[in-house]
């Protein structure tokens, strides 16, 4: 891949409700932090890209409402509706197209709408929507299929919730640090079997921004510029019944493409840390397998053995992950940002020693239909 680097990152505080800030206020906060982090001013930015969703924002062309807040006047502007990993990939392409410095920001105010009503609307209006399916119930179908495939129990899935909520204590922007046990997760009420309340990500308000630059423009960032080594994406079928829900095949494809760019042929050995979009606990297990951090069906055991813990040999979601803050769309961008901070050695209290290469994963659509993978860091 051509030389592109992440030279600035910014996240807001994530919370269940941030009533004092409008979506635009959150975008301004995130963009300001990213610019400060890059030691740039808005005049240095050539291209601005926004990420938002009309349904969540309750307005059409929702991107236009945050244009002031991201300093887009007189700039190249385009908008992405989808997870932050995809939005950031669009930013990457703008850099590769010859624009020196690109700012991408995404926002989400989950507190302002009703999550199940909105996620219900992602399903087919003729054949699926009126059955009442939405994000949690569809994820539950995938969780069950995955458990059945590998003979896993609910306690194994609960390990992810315990680990990530615990990790969140060290991440100052996380929403939901929780001291919790497998028994606590098992005792939390069922939302949709086998998923219980503590297996599910919370509703969140917040925003995040990244600044990407080509080699010349990244020079001013010096050693704080984190190289983008590979990005890949792939999509599975729309209708759940057409897919093998227990097999993260789209993620495997996306990872293979990202790894090809990054010259990674043994991800379990070459990747030091992963940030994945585990909106539900079981997803972390499936996504670890899809990323090749372990073999198919092995992620439960890998988690139980502590290998994905903060002090394990392949820490996953040391930030607390989506279970500890899930601003939809922003969530995938948070994964990228956390990887950047880890590679820079600037993740603060949740810094893991010696992270050189990190992988971030995000998805769009029910049950991880469309997958995106970023490999960040590493040597020139």
């Amino acid at each position, binding site marked *: 891949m051509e030389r592109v680097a992440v030279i600035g990152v910014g996240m807001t505080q994530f919370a269940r409700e941030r009533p004092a800030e409008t979506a635009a206020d959150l975008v301004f906060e995130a963009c300001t932090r990213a610019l400060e982090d890059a030691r740039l001013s808005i005049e240095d930015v050539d291209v601005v890209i926004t990420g938002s969703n009309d349904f969540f924002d309750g307005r059409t062309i929702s991107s236009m409402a945050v244009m002031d807040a991201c300093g887009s006047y007189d700039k190249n502007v385009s908008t992405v509706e989808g997870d932050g990993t995809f939005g950031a990939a669009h930013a990457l392409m703008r850099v590769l197209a010859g624009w020196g410095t690109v700012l991408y920001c995404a926002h989400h105010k989950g507190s302002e709408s009703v999550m199940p009503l909105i996620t219900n609307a992602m399903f087919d209006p003729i*054949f699926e929507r009126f059955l009442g399916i939405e994000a949690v119930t569809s994820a539950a179908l995938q969780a*069950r299929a995955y458990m*059945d495939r590998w003979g896993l129990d609910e306690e194994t899935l609960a390990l992810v919730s315990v680990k990530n909520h615990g990790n969140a204590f060290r991440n100052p922007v996380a929403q939901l640090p929780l001291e919790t046990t497998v028994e606590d997760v098992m005792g939390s009420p069922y939302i949709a079997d086998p998923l219980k309340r503590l297996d599910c990500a919370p509703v969140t308000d917040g925003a995040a921004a990244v600044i990407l630059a080509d080699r010349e423009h990244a020079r001013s960032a010096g050693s704080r510029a984190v190289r983008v080594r590979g990005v890949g994406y792939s999509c599975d079928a729309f*209708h759940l*019944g057409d897919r093998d829900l227990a097999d993260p095949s789209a993620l495997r494809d996306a990872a293979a493409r990202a790894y090809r760019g990054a010259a990674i042929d043994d991800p379990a050995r070459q990747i030091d840390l992963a940030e994945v979009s585990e909106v539900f606990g079981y997803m972390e297990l499936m996504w670890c397998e899809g990323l090749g951090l372990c073999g198919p069906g092995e992620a439960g055991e890998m988690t139980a053995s502590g290998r994905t813990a903060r002090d394990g040999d392949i820490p996953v979601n040391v930030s607390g992950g989506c279970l500890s803050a899930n601003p939809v769309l922003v969530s995938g961008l948070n994964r990228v940002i956390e990887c950047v901070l880890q590679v820079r050695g600037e993740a603060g209290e949740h810094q893991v020693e010696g992270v050189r290469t990190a992988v971030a994963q995000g998805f769009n659509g029910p049950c991880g239909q469309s997958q995106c993978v970023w490999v960040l860091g590493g040597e020139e």
Partner: protein
Amino acid sequence: MTEDWRDSQEILVMDGRIKVPYAWSAGEVGTTYLESLRDAERFLGTRCPVCGIVYHLPRMHCPDCFEACPEWVELESTGTLVTWTIARRPHPALSPLAPPFGFGVIRLDGADTGFLHLLYGFGVGSLRSGMRVEAVFARERTGSILDVSHFRPSREVV
């Protein structure tokens, strides 16, 4: 120093609701399929002439082969439960049946792919992936996917 005016402020919140009517086309394939459910209580699939896969839900084009699938195939009203969940706390606006009801991916006999539908009339704790299920048709049928009221554990004699 004066106190920051933001510290004592109570934020105003505007309640709203977006209600926009839509008229979604079921398309030619969807119309034939839904009419068959409505008029004959019969599930239909389509077969890809290249790979031979029988799609249910029926498809105008095979997404794998990118070929038209003009051949209709009659399917059974019984099938296998591929995966399932029980909706314990559905939003009231998303409850076509009184909770607890379930969702399942069901592969009908004669089809190669599964489809999503409701599960009802089961004992909590009795659902298993791989179990046999059968369709229960609605008495009043209007040409919608809810012309199939739900699926229940099969009462067929093996």
